């Protein structure tokens, strides 16, 4: 009895192992042949995103390669280290692309990509990921409206601290009726990112 149980279970187990082996091998093979295309298409997607906010005329270096890691920082709102990409013209600093998190969106975090020119003005802002209400709060996406372009050219010098708020709160940024929390969170995050830039400008381009 005991022996037959042993025999039966080892046979069953070996069948399972055989299947696991064959399909793990298949996965390893596919992983290997798709690795390069995946890396390439991810880099392409990232480059295309960068091109939207830092046009090619603004730099002549490889943005993806020229990067530094930034430790979690309260002003950027990141909990994990993030990568900042730097744009240069003939090695002179031109702009930096930072990722920032607005933690107080209507439904959680809004991830932003913010490009700041060397002089401290904004080259462009894009929303990387958000979970705002479709149709109400999603006008922050470039695909839905041009709202996010309001930030182009803004800076701490151009707009004082009181101005960095939506119009409802006495600031200068327009918003769409029905969703105030979303733009409020983004304005705040962009403002804080500019403050971060002002305080760390030298270190960012090192």
């Amino acid at each position, binding site marked *: 009895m005991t022996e037959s149980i042993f025999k039966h279970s080892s046979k069953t187990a070996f069948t399972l192992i055989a299947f696991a082996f064959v399909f793990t091998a298949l996965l390893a093979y596919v992983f290997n042949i*798709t690795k390069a295309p995946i890396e390439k298409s991810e880099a392409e997607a990232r480059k295309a995103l960068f091109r939207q906010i830092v046009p090619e005329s603004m730099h002549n270096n490889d943005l993806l390669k020229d990067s530094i890691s930034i430790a979690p920082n309260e002003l950027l709102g990141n909990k994990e280290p993030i990568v900042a990409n730097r744009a240069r013209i003939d090695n002179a600093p031109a702009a930096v692309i930072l990722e920032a998190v607005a933690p107080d969106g209507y439904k959680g975090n809004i991830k932003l990509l913010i490009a700041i020119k060397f002089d401290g003005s904004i080259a462009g802002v894009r929303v990387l990921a958000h979970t705002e209400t479709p149709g109400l709060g999603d006008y922050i996406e470039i695909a839905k409206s041009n709202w996010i372009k309001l930030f182009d050219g803004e800076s701490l010098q151009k707009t004082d601290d009181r101005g960095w708020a939506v119009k409802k709160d006495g600031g200068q940024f327009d918003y769409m009726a029905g969703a105030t929390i979303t733009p409020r969170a983004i304005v705040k995050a962009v403002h804080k990112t500019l403050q971060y830039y002002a305080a760390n400008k030298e270190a960012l381009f090192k």
Partner: protein
Amino acid sequence: MNQYKEIAVNGLWKQNTGVVQLLGLCPTLAVSTSIVNGASLGLATAVVMAFANGAVSPVRKLVPAEIRVAVFILVIASLVTVIDLTIHGFAEPLHKALGIFIPLIVVNCIVLARVESFAAKNTPVPSMFDGFMMGLGLTSVLAILGGIRELVGKGTLLSGIDLALGPQAKGLVMHVIPDYHGFLLAILPPGAFIGLGCLIAARNWAEQRKTNVTPSASGSLKPAH
């Protein structure tokens, strides 16, 4: 040949996963916000189902009954990962749009259901065909539901086709209703439930009419889509 015809009719109409068996509703409801999203996920599921059935059928006699579910899940999970990696590598924007729902094909019960109820009892070629036809049935429901929601919600058809076919396909997007302000309900989850309900009702109505007019016509059923 007759067997294949029956399999096709079953998958596309009689046993349609989306509106008759009502299996795998999670992706049906969540991804059917546009034709492109719905059809892409449907096709990915169809490919997984065809290969899962095709992989299980030849070895069905080698797998002891006790571990068959474990083996089936192993096969399905591997195939889904293969599809996931392939889409990620060659259609990055589509991968972004479908997101978590590609890996979730693993737990779509319709895949396991066909492996268990068809592939485990039939030869490889009919099994593959069955998996693919069941998947196509789901694809048609996802595409129609996606089309309805997209049209009512955004006034467009085929929006986002460039995600699947590249930027040169952008011209295919149809703005059926110009200057449409959008009807949010259709895009949000309730729209999916209402739309699916309407599709089920329409199918039942069509079926009922057929049986009322010609009670013996079931052999000549033609897929409606």
